[in-house]
């Protein structure tokens, strides 16, 4: 897997430092600045979660974790523990590259400096708090807008159920998934005109992701 990724990522133009154990990874990160970390949760020595925790103690570098199928609890735990995104083995590299881009973009704060977000027919003027679809204005409630704005701030990156609920409804509502479902349903009704071009992608058992513009 290591070799595979190194080849693929270098081919995509990245410079890669590949290590085989968590300990080495932490050391490498301590000595050299990197733009992104890809962390395999199934490491031989330290558990992936332990590496994640330690790294997050002193680094804000975006981290993408590699997980296996049927390990939704692991994904949620990793995301809640500070990982920015995840990719499930087996994956295709295009997917990984897209998520890497989204994470780096977010880390660089590029998104938050953009006053207007556009995705397909949707345009959101963040400064003026105006949402239009194909030019026609769309009415959103305060919470609906808050959810949309959260997604835009993390465009392309996955957000866990808990993260969304916490950010929009507050820490006391972290487990009120019913709100999330209902609001997603409403947002989809209002903003997704074309069922084949979804805006809000469901990451089963984990959370949601706003589709990427490009």
């Amino acid at each position, binding site marked *: *897997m290591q070799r*595979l990724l190194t080849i*693929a990522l270098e*081919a995509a133009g990245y410079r890669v430092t590949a290590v085989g154990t968590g300990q080495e990874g932490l050391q490498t990160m301590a000595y050299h600045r990197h733009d992104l970390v890809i962390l395999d949760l*199934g490491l031989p020595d330290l558990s992936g979660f332990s590496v994640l925790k330690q790294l997050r103690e002193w680094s804000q570098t975006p981290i993408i974790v590699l997980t*296996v*199928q*049927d390990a*939704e*609890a692991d994904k949620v735990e990793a995301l809640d523990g500070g990982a920015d995104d995840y990719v499930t*083995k*087996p*994956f*295709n*590299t*295009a997917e990984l590259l897209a998520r890497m881009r989204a994470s780096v973009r977010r880390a660089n704060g590029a998104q938050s400096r953009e006053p207007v977000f556009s995705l397909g027919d949707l345009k959101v003027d963040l400064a003026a*708090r*105006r*949402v239009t679809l194909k030019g026609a204005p*769309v*009415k*959103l*409630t*305060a*919470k609906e*807008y808050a959810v949309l704005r959260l997604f835009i701030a993390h465009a392309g990156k996955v957000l866990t*159920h808990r993260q969304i609920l916490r950010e929009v409804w507050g820490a006391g509502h972290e487990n*009120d*998934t*019913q*709100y999330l*479902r*209902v609001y*997603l*349903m409403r947002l989809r009704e209002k903003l997704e005109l074309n*069922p084949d071009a*979804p805006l809000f992608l*469901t990451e*089963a*058992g984990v959370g949601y992701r706003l589709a990427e513009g490009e």
Partner: protein
Amino acid sequence: MLFPPRRTSPWLEYGLALAIFGVVSLVNLWLERWIGYEAIALVYLLAVVLLALFVGRGPILFGTILTAVGWSVVFAPPRFSFQIGSFYDKMMFGMYFVVALTVGQLTAQLRAERLAEHKREERSRALYWFTRELANAADRMDILHRLLSQVREVVEAESAHVFPADPPGGALKLADAGSLAVETQLALATQAHQQNRIVVDRNPPPPNSAVLYLPLTAGGPSEGVLAVRFKTSQALDADRQDLLENFARQAALVLDRQRLRDAETRSRLLIESERLGRTLLNSVSHELRTPLAAIATAAATLRDSGGLSPIQQKLSSEIDFATIRLNRVVQSLLSAARIQSGQVRPHLDWCDLSEVVRTTLRELSPLLARHQTQTRLEAPVPLIRADFILLQQALGNLLVNAATYSPPGTLIEIMARAAGGELVLEVADGGPGLPADQLERVFDRFHRPPGSKPGGTGLGLTIVRGFVEAQGGRVLAQNRPEGGARFSIYLPVQEAPKISEEPSEN
């Protein structure tokens, strides 16, 4: 001796008193010339005290009277008459009587108490040995065997038999293919068992014997009945019955403890084997998936990389497709194994059914490419409490089946409606349907419909049922009247907590 032979008959004791009186009187007649008639009274007194060591109270009293009267008649002046001359002698007579009586009675009482004490000691010891014997028993059968051997030995019964009840309080069973005698005992034994009290049968066949039925209980439900047969009805006395009651109570305690021990062992074994199964499953899962993931990722990357000749492109596509299929098969096997060993832990949360359907359709769109799909969700579709992923996989399997077993171009319908407190999610196809006699059996593991193409695992529907049932639902297979098969997933509907609404703005 625990059960001494029956005490010597009263006649013998009275006879003994009389005999002693006679002998001592003769001796006294001879002694008189040396010690005088007052001292003779003391000799008589001595005789009465010695007598008291051997006989009961009645005969002692008899002996006392005999010696007193004998002394007064034979030795006290005037001799050979019932009169007593001097006042001094009358007084002596009276005091002799009192003293002899008192001493005699006290001695007899002492003796009786000592005998009783001895008996108590013997019984305690018997009970102690009995308990030790039972405590050393290895298992339930051993307990019962030892119980019987102890009973036969200690109580000197003719035969003893146990009717165990398993579970306690349940029906009695014959421990071995009994003789006719044993079977006839069953009725009375059942009576003792159900009423939890001792039943005594003094008229069983053969006549003049007695059978005692003791329920084995220490206050709780009876663990069975101990039937003890005595050769003679007299042999079944209060002492023996009492001892047997103690035995029965003790045996019940030991049986109860054994049962608990057995249950604990079973439970421990179960936990161990579950843990082993889980570990095995996890390691197999990992070992299969890791190389598979490597192959799949490499194949996907290869396919997406540029610069391949058309043949290479085709080959890499083949690898990719085959890997996806292999992955699905491994996934199915592991899911089925998890269901089988009860390791499916559904993570229930509120789900939007339309979302589940949409996500599943999107994920399977390549497999459903050659069919038309139509989704009809009857509004309002309530939020259901389900495991998103399990439900998605169940629905996915149904869709894949529909696509596999119906001709290309036909319609696959997905419908959802609320019906009687349940949510019904259905997948219907336009294929040939299912054989009418196999509507239940299609969900069995490795079931393949007759004449189906090779290449399926036969586990798809098993997984559907396993995942649906893990969420508290059920799944049904039917044939549609207009042709084709219809699979219905029923899920319980619960009241979703209210969402506080907010005003519209913006």
